């Protein structure tokens, strides 16, 4: 297997990784960088559990080669909170029971983050559309959608 040297910017920090050229971003994150917050559900780009942000846009890390994202800003769930302070979405997910088994949660939160970054005041339809690539088997999406609304409301400083 050919090895290559990759320079990846993950959560603001530059990592230099010597790894097999065929490795996906998901594998590099989990195996080379020991950042296991990003989950694998299908390895086929079907479930969304592996979603990370690349230059603020959601991307399926299981079908993205790590070498494709050199030089770009990669954000994983580990990088979303500001030190001990959780992101508004993380807080809202916790308050409303939007995580059950937690396996889809990192990807779900990152897709939601990308939505709110581009559309700070989404309708329910907007949220449904933005999360349609992230499968959840536990919640029926009800609490997740409510949590995204709640986070948006707080970010905008509106009354809850």
């Amino acid at each position: 297997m050919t090895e290559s040297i990759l320079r990846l910017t993950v959560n603001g920090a530059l990592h230099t990784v010597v790894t097999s050229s065929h490795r996906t971003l998901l594998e590099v994150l989990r195996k080379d960088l020991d950042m296991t917050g990003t989950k694998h559900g299908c390895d086929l780009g079907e479930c969304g559990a592996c979603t990370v942000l690349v230059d603020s846009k959601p991307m399926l890390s299981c079908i993205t080669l790590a070498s494709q994202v050199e030089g770009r800003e990669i954000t994983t769930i580990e990088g979303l909170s500001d030190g001990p302070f959780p992101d508004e979405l993380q807080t809202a997910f916790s308050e409303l029971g939007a995580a059950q088994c937690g396996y889809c949660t990192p990807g779900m939160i990152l897709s939601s983050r990308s939505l709110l970054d581009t559309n700070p005041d989404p309708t329910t339809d907007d949220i449904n559309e933005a999360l349609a690539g992230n499968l959840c088997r536990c919640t029926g999406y009800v609490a997740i959608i409510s949590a995204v609304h709640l986070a948006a409301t707080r970010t905008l400083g509106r009354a809850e």
Partner: protein
Amino acid sequence: MTSTSVMGGIVRRKEDPSLIQGKGAYVDDVKRTGELAAVFVRSPFAAATITSIDIEAAKAAPGVHAVYTADDVRHLGPNPAQVAVGTLRPLLADGAVKHVGEAVAMVVAENRYLAQDAADLVFVDYEPGEVVVDLKDAFADKVKVHGDASNILLTWHGHGWWEGVIDLPDPSPGIQEAKERDDTVTVSLEMVNQRLLPTAIEPRAVLADWNSGYGSVELWSSSQIPHAVAGAVGVTFGIPSNKVRVVAPEVGGGFGVKLNVYPDEILVCFASKELGRPVRWTETRREAGFASTQGRGWVGTATITGTADGKILGYELEAICDMGAYSHNFTVAVPLLGLFIAGGQYNFPTSYALHCVVTNTQTTDAYRGAGRPEAAYYLERIVDHFAREIGMDPADVRKANYWKPEDFPVQTAIGLTMDSGDYEKNLDALLDRVGYEDLKAKRDAARAEGRLLGLGLSTYVEVCGFGPSALAGLGFSWGAYGLPTAFNGSGVVRVQPDGTCTVTIGTGPSGQGHETTWAQIVSDGLGIAMDNIEVHHGDSVDLPMGIGTFGSRSIAVDGTATFEATARVRKKAAIIAGHLLEAAPEDIQFADGRAHVAGSPDRAVEWGQIAESAYQPHTLPEGVEGGLESSVVFSPPNATWPFGSHMALVEVDPETGDVDLLEYWATDDCGNVINPMIVDGQLHGGIAQGIAQALYEEAIYDDMGNLLTSSMANYTLPVSTSLPLFSLDRTVTPTDVNPLGVKGVGEAGTIGSAQTIVNAVVDAVAHLGVRHIDMPLRPKRVWQAIQDAKE
């Protein structure tokens, strides 16, 4: 419960701060030094004789440590965690394969890539045989799956289900008499309750590390039943249970698919023992389709006989239930669970015949609801159909046949006892909330304009909270086939020397929030803050016995064990606090992290002071032993019987057959509620899975036994745009079979929902002549039904 109770209040989940940061450690997040990776070679045939297996090229491939076949593991026997009915599944296929995907060989290599490359070099010679997939063909024994044995493993009959213990008269002659009366109507529908893939988002994963020094093994497994897995590993390798540690860390969804002891769990232990290295196997998504169990798969005919005033005089269900190729943990018990709610919430004679039949497909086993969604589906579809045929409102027909509150305790159609229920009150609560009469008017007005609106109702009763130890005598307990477990609940409550509390429970949660709910029970009992209570679960060394999480059982059984253990700790703590405060123990009250004398809140000691004394026995009163903990094993006197009423409003597109689910309402009754957010979350997820069965999901096999829906791209799971926001409400009818008055809620939503949708869609098109459409109600099927009715 104290007045400042955290019970029933809004309490955030203790699990979430970890999960929302991606810090939850699932099996694939646990690492061991020197891990090897396993990959399985799987059969491409649904029925074949294996004439030879050539593993030489694979063994010589780079990085390969071992290639195992049946010859290597035959001495371990078959997987011990199988109900001994029919043919047992060997750990690796032994001379024959019975379904596509059956594991034939295991390759262990330095990493997964090398293992997969080598697996492709294993050459298996198959002699393909005849395949049977169709349930009716299998029932007719047209092709036999296992040698000369009939495909019919057994038939569960309602009145005779527990031979020699419950002996009820056969209701069939009475039902036949009713059919022959001039004033009765008999209606019948043949319906399919299709195969489903449970589909947890986390695939199954296992990691074994055998320690040859201690002769012990540690196994991490994404399992709902770590203790049962430990039992099976111990039995297989002939080592005692205290040498086996099975850990189910965070589990990314279960829904029944992780409620089995799988051959791979045993095989990675074997490989680790042989090779002296930790061995990991992680299921691929495609393997999840044929290496893990599936659910449902019934074809049945439901029949109702009744009079024009809505009084039902008999209900009959005969169904062929697909077991798949082998009988696993609960495979043949799944129809039995359906039988347990035979007759549902109704007072009428009920006759059941459920045939458990093998086919050349992957094994079925429990999937959320396990037999009860199927039973509720047939019953509530045919009750609805009967109402339509006699021209009565479906709600009125149901009410005319309910058990009344004063009838309880009720002996069910198969001789079990339902302790409590108030079905009419529950249904009325739903009808009032949705504005039933207005909804019907809205539907009728739309229909007058040519729009196809439909209103669907289902009510249900479920049986859960297993279970009474007496059921072990039926073979319903794993204990009956050699595993060191039985159905009961375990809880250990320990106050630490610093006054914080550690709780250890015998459940195996996969997202149900047990750490939170159990902490609420303990916090309420001891007055210790939620933040100072840690709840441990899913580790077989923590407790001698734990049954795990399934069958909506955890809170009613293990929750009660913890409740009782809490009461015992409180009793002892009151003696110690009374000694410290020079007061009588019965005058001691607990709140806000301390104990005080009733009526004198200032005469108080902190929990830390009580615990400090408990762990320094010389400070204790005469005759009181050191320590402050209690361990309780609880066996409930009965199962629990939640119930509920669901309604859906749909609109069918007459041009395309597309179903738009506009509204969904549910009013459920799971007894007392400890954490409303968690209970609602369970209902949301359960309802979503029932709706998904009604509208989207189906495990499809071709005639050769190939699963055509083995990826998420072609097995249509609902996405966020597929579902409406559900509107929930509840009635509260506590059970008296446990002191918490709780019944369980994990499966209720699924049991109530699939037929609610089908009833709604049929209602939307019934005036066109449609009487039934089989699930999933994809546009083509609905459109076709409309076309067929026109002819």
